[in-house]
């Protein structure tokens, strides 16, 4: 078992990893940029090393400095969290070469799934349903038009080297393609350093449903059910829940099996998430695979009574999974609301000093956060400052629980998206479970003040 782990991350996920390490008796090493000197993860780690100035490229993404810190702290393993270097195959390789265990899958798997076009092709070959689309990179405009004609409009252009909504364009007809293709390629170049794009069928009323998998180094592989993440704004998730209101137990079984088999095919180890789109007829199609622990992992933990970060560490240390598929029991319903340091109406980022804070408690409420009163939210990083998670026996009860928890989630001094979340939780379609990736559109357009407000 590892004696010491370096956490190559910051914020709430860094504290999350520290908790799992503490419970396993593993010493923790935090790294931080100058902007994060007063961070909670620095405070709670057993050791902390400043590795660079505020900009991520000079600190959290600075591989030589991260490895240098790992070496002087003499760690056995590195947990990369999510974002930053978590899906950087080169980083995983460097760790291996420096004899430091990377807590995650192999560099080959990271690389394979990180190339979205290759991932689609691999999954297709493995028998996983994929959205109708051409598997290759779009060569030029003529190619794009031909592909779109074959698939049938509407289509979506996507960046091969990335995600998160950048380098994406929905195209409804030939005319739109002529402008959208170069725009998408340019955006992809800027965001990921690679202009390569591919084209898929665009599903209008799609639901984003993802399957959590876990595999150890002894060939055991399980799935832990699904998470529905359709409530998204600009492809950034706002609310996630498990189970999905759209899935029957039979669908869950089938999707889970498909995910597990595909992961076996590619020799996947550790935690991963396979993302699918569901169409109006409940057909599911592979979208992409995330080869890391995800932000929304807590909802799975709540309904399966597991600790996924703990499992990641154990797997990386060579342990066998303690449970098999039959041992995994799904119980109740869990919802997570992401709380961002942003204005609820304009989404303008709101860094600054948190002057007062109350974290909700009571039964079935969990808050994963690294924020605290007196903490200055730095402007340099993503705006997620807390995750509010609830669990209850049914979806309706979980919604009521989330509403009262949100009411008690007080963060003063900065803008947060708590009030937006309250509005979503009061929305009739949300309550009915009528979700799709277009759900948030109703919140983009100015609407009458009294509509949908939670009181």
């Amino acid at each position: 078992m590892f004696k010491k782990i370096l956490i190559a991350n910051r914020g709430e996920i860094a504290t999350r990893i520290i908790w799992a390490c503490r419970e396993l008796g593993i010493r923790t090493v935090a790294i931080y940029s100058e902007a994060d000197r007063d961070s909670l993860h620095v405070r709670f780690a057993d050791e902390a090393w400043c590795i660079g100035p505020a900009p991520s490229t000079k600190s959290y993404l600075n591989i030589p400095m991260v490895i240098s810190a790992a070496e002087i702290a003499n760690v056995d393993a590195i947990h990369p969290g999510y974002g930053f270097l978590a899906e950087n195959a080169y980083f995983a390789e460097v760790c291996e070469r420096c004899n430091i265990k990377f807590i995650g899958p192999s560099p080959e798997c990271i690389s394979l799934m990180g190339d979205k076009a290759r991932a689609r092709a691999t999954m297709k070959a493995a028998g996983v349903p994929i959205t109708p689309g051409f598997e290759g990179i779009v060569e030029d405009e003529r190619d794009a038009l031909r592909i779109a004609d074959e698939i049938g409009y509407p289509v979506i252009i996507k960046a091969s080297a990335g995600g998160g909504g950048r380098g994406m364009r929905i195209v409804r007809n030939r005319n739109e393609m002529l402008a959208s293709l170069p725009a998408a390629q340019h955006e992809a170049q800027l965001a990921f350093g690679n202009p390569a794009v591919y084209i898929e069928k665009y599903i209008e009323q799609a639901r984003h449903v993802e399957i959590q998998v876990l595999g150890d180094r002894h060939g055991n592989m399980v799935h832990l059910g699904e998470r529905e993440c359709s409530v998204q704004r600009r492809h950034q998730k706002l609310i996630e829940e498990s189970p999905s209101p759209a899935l029957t137990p039979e669908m869950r079984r089938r999707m889970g099996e498909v995910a597990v088999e595909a992961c076996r095919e590619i020799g996947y180890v550790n935690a991963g998430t396979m993302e699918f789109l569901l169409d109006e007829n409940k057909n599911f199609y592979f979208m992409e695979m995330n080869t890391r622990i995800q932000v929304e992992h807590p909802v799975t933990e709540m309904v399966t009574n597991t600790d996924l970060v703990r499992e990641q560490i154990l797997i990386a240390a060579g342990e066998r999974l303690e449970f098999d598929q039959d041992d995994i029991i799904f119980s109740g319903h869990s919802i997570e609301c992401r709380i961002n340091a942003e204005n609820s109406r304009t989404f303008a980022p709101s860094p600054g000093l948190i002057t007062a804070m109350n974290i909700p408690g009571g039964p079935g409420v969990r808050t994963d956060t690294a924020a605290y009163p007196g903490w200055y939210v730095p402007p340099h990083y993503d705006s997620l400052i807390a995750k509010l998670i609830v669990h209850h026996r049914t979806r309706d009860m979980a919604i009521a629980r989330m509403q009262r928890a949100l009411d008690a989630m007080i963060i003063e001094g900065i803008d947060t998206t708590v009030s937006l979340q309250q509005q979503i939780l009061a929305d009739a379609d949300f309550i009915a479970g009528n979700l799709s990736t277009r759900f948030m559109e109703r919140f983009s357009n100015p609407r009458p003040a009294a509509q949908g407000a939670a009181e």
Partner: protein
Amino acid sequence: MNLKEVKELIELISEKGLTEFEIERQGFRMRISRYNQPPASAQQVAPPVVALPIPPVVSAPIPAQPIQNSATPEAAPAAPASLESGSAGEAPESSLHIIKSPLVGTFYRSPSPNSDQFVKVGDRVGPETVVCIIEAMKLMNNIQAEVSGEVAKIYVENGQPVEYGQPLFGIRD
């Protein structure tokens, strides 16, 4: 716990060959641990390093004695050589220009274990004078003074792990 008590504690720990020691009292917690031997200087035992978890509002960090020379500290262990984490444990004089580490890595006073030190206290330096090496991932990085002046203080020990921004040298105009 005052500076004298901390010094005595460190002496005791070195004497008894302990590798790790932790003490907690009202409002105060201290952990001291020895590092493994640094790879390039086989003949020196790494000095014990005091690790103080820094509370959010630091009223008075323990002032460390700046190291005047690189004599092996076994006979007379220096006062808390540096703090392992967070900001510098000592308050460098405001009149000195502080050369801070631009890297995370291991600090070396000389190009190789058997050669002379780059600089000593009292030496004059210019902007391009190499004052030390910081080794990161087996790569030796020469660190230049970037200012002119006289080496007044040296805040770290040969073979000591240092973090980004950690004070290394104090240069007087």
